[in-house]
C-alpha cells in the first residue's frame, strides 16, 4: 500500500481552491493518482475512459434541456413570477419551506426523480422564490438575488438527501445493508430506514428555520 496515491487528493483540493477548470483538475488528479498508484499511462487512460463510459447515465438528466428551453421561450419563468406576485401570502421562505416538505415527502416514498435542478429549480422554484423576494424587498441587488437562487438549489438538495433514506429500497440503504452483511451483521432495510427519520425531521427544522430567517432579512432590508 502506498501513501503516494493520496497526493491525487491534494491535487484535487488545491485545484478546486485555486479555481482551475474542474475538468482539468479532475483529469490531472486522476492521471497522477493512477501513475503514483503503480499503473502505467495506458492503463490509467483506459480506466479513466472505462469509468466515463460506464457512467454515461449520470448525464441523461440533461435530455430535459430542450423542453425547459422551449417553455422558457414562451415565458415559463415569467409565468412563475406572475403567479407568485398575485399570491399575497407568498414569501421566499414559505415557498422554499413548502418545496422542502414536498421534496422530502416524495423522496421518502421513493419518488426521487420528482424534482431536481433542471426540471424544477431553474424553471419554477428559483423564479418563484425571486419574485417573492422582490415583493418583500423591492428590487434585488445582485448579491441578494444570487443568495435567493442559491438557497433554492440548496433546498432541493437538502430535501432529497434527507428524505430518500426513509424509503426502504433506495440505493444507500441497500448499500448499508450489503456492507454490514459482509461483516456478518444482518439487518433489514426497515431497521435502517427508521433511523433516517430523526435526521430528516431535524433537517426540515434546521433548514426551515434558516429559510424563515431569510424572510426576516429580506423584509428588513426592504424597509
Amino acid at each position: 500500500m502506498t501513501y503516494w496515491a493520496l497526493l491525487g487528493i491534494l491535487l484535487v483540493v488545491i485545484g478546486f481552491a485555486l479555481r482551475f477548470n474542474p475538468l482539468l483538475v479532475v483529469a490531472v488528479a486522476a492521471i497522477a493518482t493512477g501513475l503514483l498508484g503503480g499503473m502505467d499511462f495506458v492503463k490509467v487512460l483506459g480506466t479513466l475512459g472505462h469509468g466515463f463510459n460506464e457512467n454515461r447515465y449520470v448525464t441523461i438528466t440533461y435530455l430535459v434541456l430542450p423542453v425547459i428551453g422551449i417553455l422558457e421561450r414562451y415565458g415559463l419563468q415569467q409565468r412563475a413570477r406572475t403567479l407568485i406576485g398575485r399570491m399575497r401570502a407568498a414569501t421566499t421562505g414559505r415557498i422554499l419551506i413548502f418545496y422542502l416538505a414536498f421534496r422530502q415527502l416524495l423522496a421518502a416514498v421513493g419518488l426521487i426523480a420528482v424534482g431536481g435542478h433542471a426540471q424544477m429549480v431553474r424553471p419554477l422554484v428559483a423564479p418563484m422564490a425571486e419574485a417573492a423576494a422582490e415583493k418583500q424587498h423591492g428590487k434585488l441587488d445582485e448579491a441578494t438575488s444570487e443568495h435567493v437562487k442559491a438557497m433554492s438549489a440548496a433546498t432541493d438538495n437538502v430535501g432529497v438527501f434527507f428524505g430518500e433514506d426513509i424509503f426502504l429500497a433506495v440505493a444507500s440503504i441497500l448499500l448499508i445493508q450489503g456492507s454490514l452483511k459482509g461483516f456478518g451483521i444482518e439487518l433489514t432495510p426497515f431497521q435502517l430506514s427508521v433511523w433516517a427519520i430523526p435526521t430528516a425531521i431535524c433537517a426540515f427544522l434546521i433548514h426551515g428555520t434558516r429559510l424563515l430567517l431569510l424572510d426576516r432579512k429580506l423584509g428588513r432590508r426592504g424597509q
Partner: protein
Amino acid sequence: MINLHWLYVLAGFVFAGFAFSSAREGSNKKRWGNAAFWGLVAASFWFGDLLGDLGNGVLVLALVAIAGAHLLGRGSRQSTTTQERIESSDRLGNKLFLPALIIPFTAFVGTLIFNYTPLKGSGLIDPKAVTLVLLGVGIITSLAVCYAWLRPPVMAPVYEGGRLADSIGWALVLPQMLASLGAIFAAAGVGTTIGALAGDIIPHGSIFLAVLLYALGMVAFTMIMGNAFAAFPVMAAAIGVPILIHADGGNPAVIGAVGMLAGFCGTLMTPMAANFNVVSAALLELKNQYGVIKAQVPTALALLIVNILILYFAGFHL
C-alpha cells in the same frame, strides 16, 4: 426490453443537436469549441461501447483539452426577448406550467404503475433503468405537447436546449468525470489507505471520540470522493464495525444509517458532488460557482452535529 442503450441513442441525437445549434451561432467566437465539445459527448453516447477503454480515454482527454484551453463560452443569443416572454406568458396563462409538470408527473405515476402492476415482471423495461426510462418518456411526451400546442419552429427545442447547454458548459460532464476519478481512486487503493489511516488514529476507551472520528471521517471522505456511497464501506470497515459495533457494543442499525447521513452532510459541502452543487449553480447562472455550496454549509454543519448526537445517544444509550 427498453434499457439504457435506447436512452443513449436518444441522448446522442440531443447532444448532436446541441453541437449543430452551437456551430450555427455566428455571433459567438467560441462556437466551434462549443460544437466540438457537444459533438464529442454525442459520439460518446452513440459509439462509447465501440471505442474501447483506451478510445474512451482519448475522448475524455479531448473534452478536457477543450475545456481546459477555455474554448467553451456562452453566446449572447436570445431566442425571444424578455418583453416577448412576458406577453406570451400573459397570453398562455397558467396552462404553461402543464408541459413542465408532465415530466415529474410521468415519473410519479410511472413509478407507481411499474411497481404495483404486472408491468414489473413483463420485461418491457429494464428494472435497473426504469427511473431514467420514465424521465425519457416524460420528456418526449412533454415535447410532443409543446409542438402540438405552442407550434414552435421545428428546430426550436434544439436551439433552446443548446442555449441552456452552452450556459452550463463543461460542468455538464463533470459528474461523469468525477465518477471515473472514483474508479481510478479505487484502483489505486486510495480508499483502503484512508481507512487504514483512520483506523490507526482511533482513540481507545472513549466512545464519544470514536463516534466523532467515524462521523468526521465519513464527512471528509465523502467530500473527497463526492458521494457517501464510496465512503461508507471504507469507514464501516475502519471504525464503524470493529470499534463502534464490536468493541463498544453500539446499535448496528444506528451506526449504519446515521453514519451514512453524516456522509450526506459532507455531500452538501463539496464541489466533487458536482451534479448537486456545481451544475446547479451553472444552471441558475450564478456568478459564484460555489454559491450553492456556500448556501448549504450552515445547514450541513448543524445537521452534522445532530447526526453525531444521534449516533452517540441512540447508538449507545437507548
